[in-house]
């Protein structure tokens, strides 16, 4: 097709095209190509033979049909760590990021933070207060200063959920600190029920440090009462 003006094929060229290919169709087939085709068909056939359920209309993929009343098997309890992670991702990760590193200069990190781990003057009661009512004004985290506002979560999250999130951030990303119990969150919430405004670092520093008691094992909640920490 050297001449672009011409309209494609002349009759002779069309005849040549068909004749050319008619002879080519009788040539021997390349063996490697045939081998690959046979191998692919064999694999496909074996898979179909093993997974077609005899082409019966009533055979379903058992691995996937587990929902519904008839499945019988008891549902395993949800992994509490997964629930905590989900709560963190839903509520906290927007600012503190999924990796807990925050955003330098804007949102403080949770990884290795003395606020989270309860080091120096920081206690568990301070951490719960921050989550319940929020935080504002200049603060210092890991030697760096931040000046931003954290929104209060006390109205959004239940005690149980706050405890789950705090326990999660204290044990994720290499952080290692004891869990925060639901009872402790409830206690701090009760102590601060008249508080409306967000806390500042200065105010928090004036409150004595408290530590959450270790959580009570679930099956015997009534026999062992949580020891009440010293009032402050």
């Amino acid at each position, binding site marked *: *097709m050297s001449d*672009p*003006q*011409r*309209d*494609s*094929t*002349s*009759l*002779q*060229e*069309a*005849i040549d*095209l*068909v*004749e*050319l*290919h*008619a002879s*080519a*169709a*009788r*040539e*021997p*087939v*390349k063996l490697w*190509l045939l081998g*690959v*085709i046979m191998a*692919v*068909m064999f*694999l*496909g*056939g074996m*898979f*179909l033979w093993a*997974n*077609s*359920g*005899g*082409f*019966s*209309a*009533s*055979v*379903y*993929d058992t691995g*996937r*049909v587990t929902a519904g009343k008839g499945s019988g098997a008891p549902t395993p309890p949800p*992994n509490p760590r*997964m629930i905590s*992670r*989900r709560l963190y*991702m*839903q509520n906290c*990760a927007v600012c503190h990021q999924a990796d807990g590193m925050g955003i330098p200069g804007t949102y403080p990190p949770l990884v290795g933070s003395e606020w989270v781990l309860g080091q120096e003057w920081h206690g568990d009661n301070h951490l719960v207060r921050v989550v319940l009512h929020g935080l504002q004004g200049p603060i210092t985290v890991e030697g760096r200063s931040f000046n931003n506002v954290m929104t209060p979560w006390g109205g959004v999250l239940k005690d149980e959920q706050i405890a789950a999130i705090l326990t999660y951030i204290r044990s994720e990303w290499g952080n290692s600190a004891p869990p925060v119990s639901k009872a402790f969150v409830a206690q701090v919430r009760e102590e601060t029920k008249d508080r409306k405004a967000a806390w500042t670092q200065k105010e928090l520093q004036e409150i004595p440090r408290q530590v959450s008691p270790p959580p009570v094992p679930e099956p015997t909640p009534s026999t062992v009462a949580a020891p009440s920490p010293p009032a402050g």
Partner: protein
Amino acid sequence: MNEVSPRSAMQDGRWPRGWTDPLPRLLLWCSASASTWLVAGTVLLIIAGVQVVNPAFLAGVSFLTFGRLVPMGINALVYGWGSLVALAVILYLLSRLGGVTIASARLAYCAIGAWNLALLLGLCAIAAGGGNGLLLLELPPFASVTILLAYVAMAIWGYALFRGRRIPGTFASSWYLVAGMLCFPWLVVTGNVLLVWLPIPGPAQAPVAAWFAGGMMNLWLAPVSLAVIFYIVPQVLGRRLAAYNLSLLGFWSFMLFAAWCGLGRMVGGPVPAWMASVGFVSSFLMIIPVLIAGVNVFGVLKGTSEWTLPLRHAAAGIGAFAGTYLLAAILAVPPVAGIFNFTDIAVAVGLLGLGGFVTLSLGGLIQFILPQFEHRDPLAEKLGSWHLWLTVIGVGSAAVCLVLGGILQGFAQSDPGIVFSHSVDYVMPFRFLALLGFLIFLAGAACLFLRVHRALARYLITPP
């Protein structure tokens, strides 16, 4: 006409005495309206894409909401761009491969007019809220019926051209053309009857819908596009396809597996086990026709220096063909489908198929016939070249972004620690980049639109 031997037919000249060939003009008119639909459909999908990234965009305009824009865009691309060109291509190529032409294209022109009008009104009905949520079956019944009648009016000539061919024997392109021509009414009638007019019981609808939506691509647009590639390559180079002895196997394996391919989307769905398995196996076995077509085309292209525009189109088209079906095969592997079935990777498969494979191949044939209307127009050549490159770059970059985003999205969706809305947030940057790819594709479509309409205007001002 069958008894005329090739030699005597040749001496008679190209066509019977006194005939002029109306098919290039028919293809020109068809391309003009189809390229308009290509631009319109892409614009609609891009607006929808902007709304995904920024939901406030045009939020108050009811007929431009996401749920209406997407079906409008996809229907415009499939029925307006792909199918309309495919019909004209079937007539044109069957004429060229048979050495015959049609006496009058009056019926065909009426059919194109009716098709365009029905599609326009149908899209307006979708914009007014008349969609039904069944992919590619959203057009209201009056539009579907009109389109089907218009198809019949065109297909009558297709049958006549094939039946009355003067060249004995058939070529691979003719098989694909005739197969596609037979599949279109099968698909449209079955889909509309079983899902829209007399809906079958609920559980059976999902596999039928998957078969139909897959079939519109795999059984209708893909065979015609392959026919174009198999026609252009030996025509331009004057050499035969490299592995033609396997092409019959390639054809039958393509038609057999393509019909079942759509069920690959049902892996993990509430269907009997054999349906999902057949869907996966068919998608996997599509490797065979892809391999055969690839060897056929690239075996000839190897070492060639005549890279004319239609040839480059065909090479890019066969590349997109391989990419589409290999990606679809990977996506249908049951463990992979379990994670990635409902991610942007499925969008990437559709984009590679419709935007890459079909657009490049059919565009190649349009550019193959345009020069006879253009009288050596240097700008037209440039527009055609830009169309090719912008389409390749746009589709390629958008598909890569969608696949990368889809991988992230799939893992995020199957992680119980991540809420669903976040799995969508992770994909946003990739969707934004894919949107840029779509914009490049739109620029390419606009180049094709300009080239076709310039040729049409020149033809109307100075008829030959």
